[in-house]
């Protein structure tokens, strides 16, 4: 968990460049530190730097969000990082599957910025 004296560091993994730009801008303006990557491989690599929370898109080329989540939760150093799934699918199956796999939250696109920040703050508490 982040200490009060430093910014909460968020890793965003999403293959949609526009979503990355907008989410990064919103979170940085709200006082978070943000790093980004466009795919699952990049997410697994950057997760080794132990961000405070990861925002993870489900549908990405290569390793998808489900598999990235599974590997993060099986990794000794990464299993305690809260992961919030970002998805354009509101199916109950997707929600159930990610929460059962250990996700700390699930945010549907297009997301409400206030709700996203609230979910992040809850996850890192």
């Amino acid at each position: 968990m982040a200490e009060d004296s430093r910014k909460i560091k968020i890793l965003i993994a999403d293959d949609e460049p526009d979503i990355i730009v907008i989410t990064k801008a919103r979170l940085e303006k709200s006082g978070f530190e943000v790093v980004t990557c466009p795919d699952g491989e990049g997410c697994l690599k950057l997760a080794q730097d132990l961000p405070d929370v990861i925002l993870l898109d489900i549908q990405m080329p290569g390793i998808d969000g489900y598999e990235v989540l599974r590997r993060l939760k099986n990794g000794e150093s990464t299993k305690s990082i809260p992961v919030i799934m970002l998805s354009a699918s509101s199916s109950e199956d997707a929600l159930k599957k990610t929460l059962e796999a250990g996700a700390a939250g699930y945010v549907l696109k297009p997301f409400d910025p206030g709700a996203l920040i609230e979910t992040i703050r809850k996850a890192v508490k």
Partner: protein
Amino acid sequence: MDKDAEKILIHDLRNPLAAIIGSAELFNDGLLGDLTAEQRDQIRIIRTAGRMLSDIISDLQDIRGLEDGDLKPVLADVPVSDLLKELKWTGDFAEKEGKKLEINTGRTERVLADKGILARVLSALIINALKQESSGDKTLLRIDEDKEFVKISIVGSGDGVPGELVPKLFDKNFKTENPGLKTKAGPGLGFYFCKLAVLAHGGKIEAESGRGKGLTVTIHLPKQRK
């Protein structure tokens, strides 16, 4: 369209829409610097239209879920103040259009509902009422209750709907079967979603109107879990 194709379409629409709304909200919230009044108006148009599109996409998805019984409202005691926060954008829409939305919640403080679904139902009804409204009229969101139900009414003041069509307003095919109906907007698939959503809450939805009398839609939501 089959179910799988529909799912892919909905998924593919959400990503660009998230970009449009997210970008408009960065400007709207002043995070990218000061805007002129004209720029603020334009951004508000983009944001409101984006929210409407987002709701239509969610309606399409949830109609399927409600019809199939896969989607069930998750009921909770929702503070009316939280519900009104979710509806704030409809007030922005009214302001942009130079129309009036009045809210009277009476003494009701809480509603037993799925907040997200109920907010979409009310948004659809309010926006429809505002679109029908002429300059100088107003739309009223009124909440009251009796022993068994919380009753939420959207009281419109536009041209209304001919009385013989009122019982069919919430039918799935209402719009396609009444293409000549001369209203500025008219209920579409959104009204059918409203009916399914309210029924899934264990409630009922009613409409009253007549030509020139405006349309009033009232939702009855049970106060106790059934």
